[in-house]
């Protein structure tokens, strides 16, 4: 029964990891860029909610609604400033361009917030089902993640810009030939990816303490999840998030917690080697 409680807890957090990874994998799918600025943007999501809540007294969930569009705008700005010029250059350029953003954000963030841990005090009580207790904050975070993912899918499948994003993912050259403004679509996609990262960070802030450097851990988790789900497949990333969440919930029952990342990253490399299209994808 205890195990079941861990499982539920892991699953709920898995949804939150999942949307960060969706952002990573969306960016990869559209423009073949591994976003090394994903972690700092997750951290900015944490700080965004934190500042709005502590400075302006907004409720964290209300703050989330402000952080999301800010993430979108920041992402589009990053794309225009740093990535657009090197999008067709050799891969190292775009990787390092995103890493340059990482350095800039972390540098300014460290100067502004130091690296002391912060935490938000969000109390939503808990639900109990017999021996299983679910923290309210985690349940809300999972629901918000599901809503975000659903919103993304609705956007990608039912709006014109969303369809453009899918077209560019599929074949940028062909999309350009039929008149899709690919640079705008790429900027939008990068913005969406960053928005998902920021939302994920904002939700994480409601139940875990964080520093400006915390994003790195979640960024690495996004890589693992993205590869599990198949790079470029947002829905796969959500499922991957659930798997990772479950692993993190269940594994500590069988081995020391510190072994969990060993397990995660070995699994990550093995998946890359034997199923590079992800656990759910067909063979490439």
């Amino acid at each position, binding site marked *: 029964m205890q195990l079941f409680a861990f499982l539920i807890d892991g699953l709920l957090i898995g949804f939150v990891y999942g949307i960060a990874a969706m952002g990573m994998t969306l960016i990869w799918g559209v423009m073949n860029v591994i976003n090394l600025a994903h972690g700092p943007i997750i951290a900015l999501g944490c700080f965004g909610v934190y500042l709005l809540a502590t400075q302006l007294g907004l409720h964290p969930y209300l703050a989330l609604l402000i952080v999301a569009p800010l993430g979108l705008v920041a992402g589009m700005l990053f794309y225009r400033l740093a990535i657009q010029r090197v999008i067709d250059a050799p891969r190292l350029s775009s990787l*390092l361009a995103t890493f340059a953003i*990482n350095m800039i954000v972390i540098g300014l963030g460290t100067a502004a917030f130091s690296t002391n841990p912060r935490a938000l005090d969000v109390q939503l009580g808990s639900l109990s089902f017999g021996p299983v207790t679910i923290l309210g904050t985690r349940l809300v975070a999972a629901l918000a993640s599901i809503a975000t993912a659903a919103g993304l899918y609705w956007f990608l499948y039912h709006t014109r810009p969303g369809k453009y994003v899918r077209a560019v993912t599929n074949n940028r050259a062909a999309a350009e030939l039929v008149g899709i403004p690919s640079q705008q679509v790429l900027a939008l996609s990068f913005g969406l990816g960053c928005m998902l990262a920021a939302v994920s960070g904002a939700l994480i802030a409601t139940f875990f303490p964080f520093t400006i450097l915390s994003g790195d851990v979640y960024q690495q988790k996004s*890589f693992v999840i993205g590869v599990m789900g198949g*790079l470029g497949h947002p829905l796969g990333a959500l499922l991957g998030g659930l798997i990772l969440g479950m692993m993190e919930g269940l594994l500590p029952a069988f081995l020391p917690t*510190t072994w969990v990342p060993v397990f995660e990253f070995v699994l990550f490399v093995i998946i890359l*080697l034997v199923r590079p299209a992800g656990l759910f994808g067909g063979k490439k």
Partner: protein
Amino acid sequence: MNPWRHPGLWITLALTLGLGLWPVVLQKAALRETIFTILLSVALASSLNIILGYAGYISFGHVVFFGLGGYVGLYLMNTLGLSLWVALLAGGLAAALLAFLLGKAILRLRGAYFALATIGVNEAMRAFINNFAPFGGATGISLNFKVYQAYGGAANALWLVYTILLVTTLAMILISHIVKNSKFGLGLMAIREDEDAAEVMGVITPNAKTWAYVLSAVLPGMLGVLFYFKNGNIEPGDAFRLSSSIELLVMIMLGGAGTVLGPVIGAAGYQALRGFLLTNALFKNIQLSVAGILLLLIILFIPVGAVGWLRRRFPALRRLLP
């Protein structure tokens, strides 16, 4: 065509030697520490350049060899009481062995998939060492101060370490140049440009890539021993820090990938800049951001790096810019 008659090589070696001897001549310990950091980066960036610049495989996990070497070295010296020389050798071998095994597995992956796998390997290694009791788990290994006595005390040991580093750095530049001007290097560059075409032309790509990876791992393994011997302790978080690997990529990018001189200039420039920013009152707190902005400007406007830019701008200088 004779690689030994390449004036650029001798200029590079002479400049590095001059830089290295500067603190020796002045006998200044503070200057020695500054130059130590620069030389270490030069050697590490040059080693990464073999797999990255010559073979075209982007690795985010180069520091894994440095960290592993450091752990193996400190373990041998501290726990088994072996000498620094044995430790250096063992660190290099351990890194080479890891690279060989990894090479057989992950060098099949191309492009971003390889890059991601190297991140995975680095993180898995960090997490594993974090749990590995013989290497001290999360606390790591602290070198017993008595170990330094065999080398004439800590002060003398620092000069010894510095001398070994200088020799190793010069050797690395030489190796980088020899590889670039060899048949092996030609095969690697063919792989970088078009791996499938290289295979069709007869380059045994799996072997060439694996050996390039091994070659780029040996010196970091040895330098890890040297650095952590000097440092006195090692712990998993520092030894396998992802951003250390990325810093090396940045240095190569600044100087120019695939050239002999590029990583040398890039590493020296990066460390000099970092030193300046860290000591400058205005930039001290945001040095990382300033470095990031400079990196971005270089990527956007001088994507071929300093050496690549000079070679294009002044074709007459090509022979001086290896």
